[in-house]
């Protein structure tokens, strides 16, 4: 599903160049539930952004679902993101002036689905997240766990191949974190590839595979045989 070959990425800030990813080789198969771990500055968020086509890369090769991702125009990248990828962020990134249902429905707006239809579909996804009663609430009226579940519903509504979650539990307490992980594991069970960036060990222990990054390189990459689940 996701193939990275000798991927390099550096950021330039003024005269200084920061080499963040130093030749990453990685393959993630369809339907995997993978966590990327590492201390801050290890390049894990950068890697996720490259995979999510939110950011470009300098050298190497990135293939997503058989499609080479290189030098895409902004428009093509936007369309690919819309069709292939669902994002879940640490800070939820819901649009504050839209209610839960409208937030969930937004990706379908960019697929030119009619308002009525996309709101109906959004309600279905909210229902799956157990948030049907909260559909009309604004983000600031929801708890952290509820916001993240709304964000996951939004990530799922365009039926993506991959869910990319950047520290999805970083802003949540333990109990809520586990609930969110339950949801992500359930999503993965439907066949969607899920990649989670986290620095929490107990979160990574609930994924099939743990990839550890250190200073822009993959330190180790192993299958988690004793996957934990409360689901």
């Amino acid at each position: 599903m996701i193939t990275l070959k000798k991927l390099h990425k550096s950021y330039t800030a003024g005269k200084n160049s920061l080499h963040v990813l130093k030749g990453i080789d990685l393959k993630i198969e369809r339907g995997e539930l993978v966590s990327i771990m590492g201390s801050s500055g290890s390049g894990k968020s950068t890697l996720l952004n490259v995979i999510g086509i939110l950011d470009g890369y300098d050298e190497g090769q990135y293939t997503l679902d058989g499609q080479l991702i290189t030098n895409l125009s902004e428009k093509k990248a936007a369309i690919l993101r819309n069709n292939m990828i669902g994002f879940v962020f640490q800070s939820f990134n819901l649009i504050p002036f839209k209610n839960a249902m409208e937030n969930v429905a937004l990706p379908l707006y960019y697929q030119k689905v009619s308002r009525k239809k996309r709101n109906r579909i959004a309600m279905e996804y909210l229902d799956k997240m157990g948030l049907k009663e909260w559909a009309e609430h604004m983000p600031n009226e929801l708890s952290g766990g509820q916001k993240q579940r709304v964000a996951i519903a939004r990530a799922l509504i365009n039926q993506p191949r991959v869910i990319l979650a950047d520290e999805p539990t970083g802003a949540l307490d333990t109990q809520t974190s586990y609930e969110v992980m339950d949801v992500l594991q359930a999503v993965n069970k439907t066949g969607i590839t899920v990649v989670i960036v986290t620095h929490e060990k107990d979160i990574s222990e609930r994924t099939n595979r743990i990839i550890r990054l250190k200073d822009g390189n993959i330190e180790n990459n192993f299958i988690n045989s004793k996957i934990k689940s409360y689901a």
Partner: protein
Amino acid sequence: MLDLDKWQEILHTIKQNKLRTFLTGFSVAWGIFMLIILLGSGNGLKNGVEHQFRDEATNSIFIYNGRTSDIYRGLNKGRRIYPDNGDYDWIVNNLSQLEKISSSYSIYGDNQISYNGEYGDFNITAVHPSYHEIENLTPVDGRFINQNDLRENRKTAAIGLTVKETLFREASPIGKHIKINGITFKVTGVFDADNNDRENREVYVPITTAQTLFSRNDDVHSLRLTTKEVTVEESKGLVNTLRSKLSQRHSFAPDDERAVYISNHIEQYTQFLNVFKAIDLFIWIIGIGTIIAGIVGVSNIMIIVVKERTLEFGIRKAIGATPSSIIGLIILESIVITTFAGYIGLVLGVGVLGLLSNVMPANDFFMNPQVNLVIAGSATLLLIISGIIAGMVPARKAAKIKPIVALRDE
């Protein structure tokens, strides 16, 4: 543009962000409102003063009788100087720029004028036929006194509207005979001096007839003339020529401005026109300043709005918004707000002007404040376009920004 869903999305955004919408809209509405008030007030001033000139032709020079202010060649100070028929003839024969001329001789005292048992005290003014054109009298019925009346010393009279209404009420006065101080005159026509009550109480008779019947000399009280197209300088030259000729004919000092008063309306009117050009210019400078302030206001707010929404655009891009859809969102929103606000400013401005002209009684300095709607509309359009351009720059920047940078920029 005609995508209904897009409009719904924009209207929703506008509705959910009332303060931001209000601030953007307010600077536009205020700019247009002030511009309309300014332009309207300027026009009100102009209309008021132009109304002051309504009674008289604006290319006219009037010569009034006066008193000498000094001894001249052994002649007394304080002598009365009247223009006379000789002056009239000299002007007719010698002044090449002359367009129309009339003498005016008022017969003072109680002039009892009657018709068929109706009586009234009115003014009698003896004039030449051009008088009604020089004084902008509007014919209501019949004709003014004419050249034949003068040549044959006919006892004819043109009467003001008030005279007609008093003596004849609803009936037509044309061809009827009225008595002026016991002498019978035939009415030729009725004239209206645009609600000027004094002038509507006049009875105009031929100058020749009046001089024969009443004054028995050839003095007149004033000479009123209009000129062909002349510049202010030329009109001043004319006044000098007239004064020196009159001083020769009536033996007074050529520099004695009180021996005869010469009032130069050309100069006055041109001065007023210049004042108005200055006022116009002033209003436009302020107006353009107001528009620029509006443009700067809109631009500032657009820049702030886009900055404030960077995260939102980042989110939208992450979930599949193309750069052009982001630009479209910002621009359309800006168009909707500025158009609506501009329209409100326009309506309010025109409304306040309307209220002003109703509440303030029309006077000589302020009348019918109006505004050219084409100008007001263009100003609104200009603000809308500048709103678009102002939004375009940050919008393009926002659209170009990588979503990851926008999302990090919290």
